[in-house]
């Protein structure tokens, strides 16, 4: 069976500090895989290594059956991966529209890029309304919408979402999770990193829990939800 993402024995280091130790993880095609754990457990390191932003010091990453270990970020984007990173990281000095245009510049066909940009502004009407505004002036929730829309501009098959609900008002969190379900229904595979474990486990069909850089548990969300020990130790819900 082909998976959207298969990671085997992933090691990521920052100098002498080991951020992940032998992480194994698979994300099914068309599913939502939740990656959970406390602060500093290695979630973001794992995601950034998949995206090609961090050097992988051990293990392998394959994306839709293709070995992408150590590949450059642009090759990983071409393999069908896009990221909505932790902290959103929209280009605050660029307009909303320019953020999308820039992300679309990696699409070979300019007509496709333009169509996608217009589709994004319809899908997220608030971005359409604020297209000329600087991205830095958007609210946190709007910036998160923009970060997701920007990621979708490259037409990804696997979307990495790192803490999309962090710091957002409850209404906005609901909106973001509704989008996650929509994208899944459209067939995009999603790797979702979340601190809000309860919400993540509700939407996910598979979950992996990291602790101190290693996999502490993996399985169906319902099993993990009911595992009181894990809840107390890692989810702190």
């Amino acid at each position: 069976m082909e998976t959207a993402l298969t990671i085997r024995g992933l090691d990521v280091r920052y100098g002498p500090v080991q951020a992940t130790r032998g992480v194994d993880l698979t994300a099914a095609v068309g599913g939502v895989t939740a990656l959970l754990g406390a602060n500093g457990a290695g979630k973001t390191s794992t995601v950034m290594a998949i995206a090609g932003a961090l050097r992988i010091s051990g293990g392998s990453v394959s994306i839709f059956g293709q070995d992408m270990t150590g590949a450059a970020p642009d090759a990983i984007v071409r393999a069908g991966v896009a990221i909505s990173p932790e902290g959103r990281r929209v280009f605050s000095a660029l307009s909303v529209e320019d953020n999308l245009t820039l992300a679309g510049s990696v699409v070979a066909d300019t007509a496709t890029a333009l169509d996608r940009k217009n589709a994004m502004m319809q899908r997220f009407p608030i971005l359409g309304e604020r297209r000329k505004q600087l991205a830095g002036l958007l609210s946190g929730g709007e910036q998160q919408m923009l970060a997701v829309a920007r990621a979708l501009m490259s037409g990804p098959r696997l979307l990495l979402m790192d803490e999309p609900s962090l710091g957002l008002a409850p209404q906005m969190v609901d909106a973001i999770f509704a989008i996650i379900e929509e994208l899944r229904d459209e067939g995009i595979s999603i790797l979702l990193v979340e601190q809000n474990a309860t919400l993540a486990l509700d939407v996910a069909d598979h979950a992996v829990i990291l602790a101190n850089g290693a996999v502490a548990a993996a399985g169906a969300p319902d099993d993990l939800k009911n595992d009181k020990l894990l809840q107390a130790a890692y989810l702190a819900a």
Partner: protein
Amino acid sequence: MDLIIQQSINAISLGGVYAMLALGLAIVFSIVGLINFAHGDIMTFGGYGIFLSLAFGMSPVAALAIGIGAAVVMALTLERTAFRAMRGADVVTLLITSFAVSEILKVLFQNTISARPVPISFPAAWSGTYEIGGATIGVVPTVSIIVAFVSLLGLTLILRRTATGMAMRAAAEDLEMLKLLGVRANRVVAMAFALSGLLAGIAAVIWTAQRGSVDPMMGFFPVLKAFIATVLGGLGSLGGAVLGGFVIGVLEVLTQAFLPDGLSPYRDAIVLALVIAALLWRPDGLLPAQNANRS
């Protein structure tokens, strides 16, 4: 009145050169965090490009084009050979690398061409003058003002309107995020160096047309002034660099023209004292960069 017009032309013309050099420094700094002290040598190399083209009997206009091209090629070469390997190193490491590159280039200029100034002679018509309202104004300063404004305007349009410019502004804010979108960072960085080389080449053209000679230190002092201009304007801020360049240029010409003779040895000291005063008033510069997250 005549004197005021003449000195204003001189001030804007000198300010334009500083503004172009400062903008070149700022574009590169804003993206890769490099304070490029070899920028002056890129300008000098452009000057030697003009000198050699003329020596080989090319027409003056072709020589100027080759000089500008030489500066662009040198900027791209330095990026590829020296600075790309140091990408992501801290600001001090990058600064020292650029000092080393600068010293190597100066020695190369001295040993392969000459340690002494070599003359560049343009057609006599270029050094002519014309009169406006009784003031005698040089053709070269006038043309250099036009060239500087066209260059600065052109660069603004590139940064604001083109996809490359958009990528460069995004890179200045978050280079890693730009890479994560799949944009090839090396191209964006190379483009930044090419534009900074282009501006240094145009500055070299103006500078040599006014001075009539090239020597290994030609670019050093104007780039030192341009560096002060980028700090005055706000390190990493492009608009600030341009503003700072004009302010320094105007201050230099004003102090030269209107300071009593007894004080003229203190000209640079007075200009720098004014810069320091401005920085005490606005520590982040006159037009601070929006993301002042580099130290």
